[in-house]
């Protein structure tokens, strides 16, 4: 099918004298089973694909996209991209990438798609495991297992033809518990098979049970230990500051800081499209440039911002292979791969001990609103546990922790020795920061 569409595009491009263009194709297929009570409540499956055509028009770049996969639509796609390009004002200085001699190799763990029957069985097994952990598990508890496969292919007028397939089996469990007249929930989310159903259920159910009876801490300054999962969520919000595109638009506090100290000595941040053990890998970026591992922050020094070919041309440096598209139809931007604050030297228990008295944050919410990636400021709803005399104690909730992400990078006191990388591609260890503002009662 793809060849037929590609040829239709090539014919129309030739008719209109368009000589420099790219076809970016992406398709996804997925199926999932979800439970409620002791039964499968929902089965879903989806197949979809889209094509983005972009071409050089009078020194500008024109884009058009579609999911309608027929030849007439392909001809229209070329016409629309030309029209869009003509009204674009930004000069395009880099054109379409001709291709590189050498590309790296992905090494993602092997993906064996789950069958429809596997998915149902696994979802039910996980659900039953939740009920088996505690008799306090109640209505509303849900488990879901999903298999998903995404293919990206880039073909361009220079003869470049690259494709990459990413497959993933995922299991999610949301446990709802009731105890002492109070309801709470928590979840676990991992690659299917990495943890047993029982391990996942115990994590979700016990985390929910631990929250029962939480109190509101007094307003004040606290030493804070961010759990690794919360820290990587924070990192995901502020990662855009490391984009040269954002910096060149005057919207990043890291603009012009390459080579400068921006963080504590113990902070190392890497960006790796082929991170060991990480399933979502690629060997090329959204322009077809080879993707590779790089140090972004080393011992607290900002080594580089992340570039596509255009931002690199503006800065007078080489692209870092970080061109991205937020979906097939989006224009070329800049994004990260597996973007991780690397591990430190302390165990989690040592981090608690170093905190002495403080707060261990195991939940942050509403970051899309409560954190500003331009300024670094955040004030976010949180939940977690008090730390007393270096030990995690009773649960707390309904408080905010506030600060500035960039200040926090400088003020980090210690990091734990394990990095937790999420499917979103962000990773971090647990992290200790002293004297942060907490609003509670």
């Amino acid at each position, binding site marked *: 099918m793809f060849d037929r569409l590609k040829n239709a595009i090539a014919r129309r491009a030739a008719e209109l004298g368009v000589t420099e263009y790219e076809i970016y194709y992406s398709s996804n297929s997925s199926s999932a089973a979800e439970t*409620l009570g002791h*039964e499968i*409540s*929902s*089965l*879903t*499956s*989806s*197949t*979809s694909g889209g094509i*983005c055509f972009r071409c050089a028009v009078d020194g500008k*770049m*024109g884009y*058009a*996209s*579609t*999911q*309608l*996969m027929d030849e007439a*639509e392909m001809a229209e796609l070329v016409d629309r991209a030309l029209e*869009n*390009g003509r*009204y*674009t*004002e*930004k000069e395009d200085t880099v054109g379409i990438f001709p291709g590189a001699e050498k590309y790296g190799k992905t090494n993602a763990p092997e993906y064996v798609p789950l069958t*429809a029957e596997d998915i149902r069985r696994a979802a039910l097994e996980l659900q039953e495991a939740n009920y088996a952990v505690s008799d306090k598990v109640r*209505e*509303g508890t*849900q488990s879901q297992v999903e298999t998903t496969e995404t293919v990206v292919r880039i073909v361009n007028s220079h003869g470049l033809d690259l494709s990459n397939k990413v497959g993933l089996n995922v299991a999610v469990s949301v446990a*709802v518990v009731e105890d002492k007249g109070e*309801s709470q*929930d928590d979840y676990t989310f991992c690659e299917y098979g990495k943890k047993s159903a029982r391990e996942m259920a115990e994590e979700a159910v016990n985390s929910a049970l631990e929250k029962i009876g939480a109190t509101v801490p007094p*307003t004040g300054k606290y030493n804070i230990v961010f759990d690794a999962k919360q820290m990587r969520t924070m990192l995901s919000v502020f990662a855009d500051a490391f984009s040269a595109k954002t910096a060149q*638009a005057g*919207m990043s*506090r890291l603009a012009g800081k390459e080579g400068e100290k921006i963080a504590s000595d113990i902070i190392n941040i890497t960006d790796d499209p082929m991170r060991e053990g990480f399933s979502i890998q690629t060997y090329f970026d959204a322009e077809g440039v080879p993707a590779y591992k790089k140090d972004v922050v080393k011992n607290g020094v900002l080594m580089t911002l992340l570039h596509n070919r255009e931002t690199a041309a503006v800065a007078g440096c080489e692209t870092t292979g970080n061109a991205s598209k937020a979906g097939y*139809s989006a*224009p070329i931007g800049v994004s990260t791969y597996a973007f991780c604050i690397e591990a430190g030297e302390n165990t989690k228990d040592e981090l608690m001990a170093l905190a002495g008295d403080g707060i261990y944050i195991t939940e942050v*919410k*509403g970051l899309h*609103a*409560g954190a*500003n990636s*331009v300024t670094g*400021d*955040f*004030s*976010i*709803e949180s*939940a977690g546990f008090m730390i007393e005399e270096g030990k995690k104690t009773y649960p707390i*909730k309904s*408080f*905010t*922790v*506030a*600060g*500035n992400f960039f200040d926090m990078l400088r003020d980090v006191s210690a990091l734990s020795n394990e990095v937790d990388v999420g499917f979103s591609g962000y990773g971090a260890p647990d992290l200790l920061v002293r004297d942060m*503002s907490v*609003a509670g009662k």
Partner: protein
Amino acid sequence: MIEKRLLEEVLGIAVSTGADFAEVYSEQTRNGSIRHLNGKIEAIGDNMVCGVGIRAFVGTKTVYASTSDVTREGLIKCAKSVAAAVGEGFNVQSIRLTERIFPNVHPVKIVPSGADMGYKCDLLKAACSAAREYDERVVQAAGNLITVDHSILIANTEGLLTTDRHIRSRMAVQVTAADGGEMQSGVCSPGRGMGLETFELFDPKDIGITAAKQALTNLTASYCPAGKMTVAIENGFGGVIFHEACGHSLEATSVGTGTSQMCGKLGQQVASTKVTAIDDGTIPGAWGSVNIDDEGNETRRNVLIENGILKSYMVDRLGSRRMGLPMTGNSRRQDYTFEPTSRMTNTFIANGEDKNEDIIASIEYGLYAKSMGGGSVNPLTGAFNFAVSEGYIVRNGKICEAVRGASLIGTGAEILMNIDMVGQNLATGQGMCGSSSGSVPTDVGQPLIRVSEITVGGKE
């Protein structure tokens, strides 16, 4: 659009293995986007979203399959996959569809997808230029003009066959202001369920200047103090407080699965008697309005809370089966790849009887939240948060210095009871609400309200 006979065949296949109901949702959407950055039109995109979703019910169990292959073969394959997931055997049912045409209450003057591209670019440029020219400390005005032209077809085994076309337009300008090492941002992003005549209602220059003023206010603001305070929340997007603190907990998505704090509370007092809250998908041209919901039901005005008493949930077809309550025209989805569920449309707290000036004058020490960002909620516990994008300290009944970086948190049950004054300047703000059926446009709204006590998250 798909032929009626093919739809009948597809539905017949979908219920051939024991499903008691099936539905086809077909979509063709032209999304347009223009982005402005660094004083220039940076990129123009347009995307044709096209696909079909087929859903079958067996009691309260559902099977949903979607595909972007809208050929006859693609649809039959999709329907067969639904039937195979439902059960065994193959007894194709005969379905007869009767077309129904609902009234269009959202007329459009200038359809964006066909409008002159130069004109659209000029609208956005006017907004961004106004922001840049407003003050020399404005270092960036990033603008987006988003237009959506969304045509849907819904057919189901109850015989319904209907179509609708929904158009919306929105402009968002994000301004960055800098002074020395300090950098702050401001946003203004109005939209309507209308064509480009939206920008006759909202002058693009005003959009840019509003965003610029907010960024400049924050540039000179100090960090907000932390702790419990009395807070006055301004109209418009301030209504996000009801959306998060209560609205999501009234959706059948959570009520029907027993995961809402509002379960079993119909007829009970859940808010202060000052609070009347409404979800209304029928408001002509509003951002969250649609003629019909994504299951083919006419939208309507649902009084959710009246003088503090819970009157109604928002119920979709699955929720209706789970809860034994009628559907309320609230079923929505981002696109055909999502199974629809109960969602808000235009949700707001109605005008009250307090005078706005009395509300501010009543506060000895507190926060005036003039402009709000988004937020989130856990419907099970009711714990919610939302961000203040422009705030001021109130002292002795007077609005004083600006503060930044504040957020408000609490639980729905507590906050609804603490709304002790409701003003008279109802206005709405536009948002994209995310939930299990994707991101959908919703209006939030309220007049100025006073919350007697709420936790303010700040840095000082």
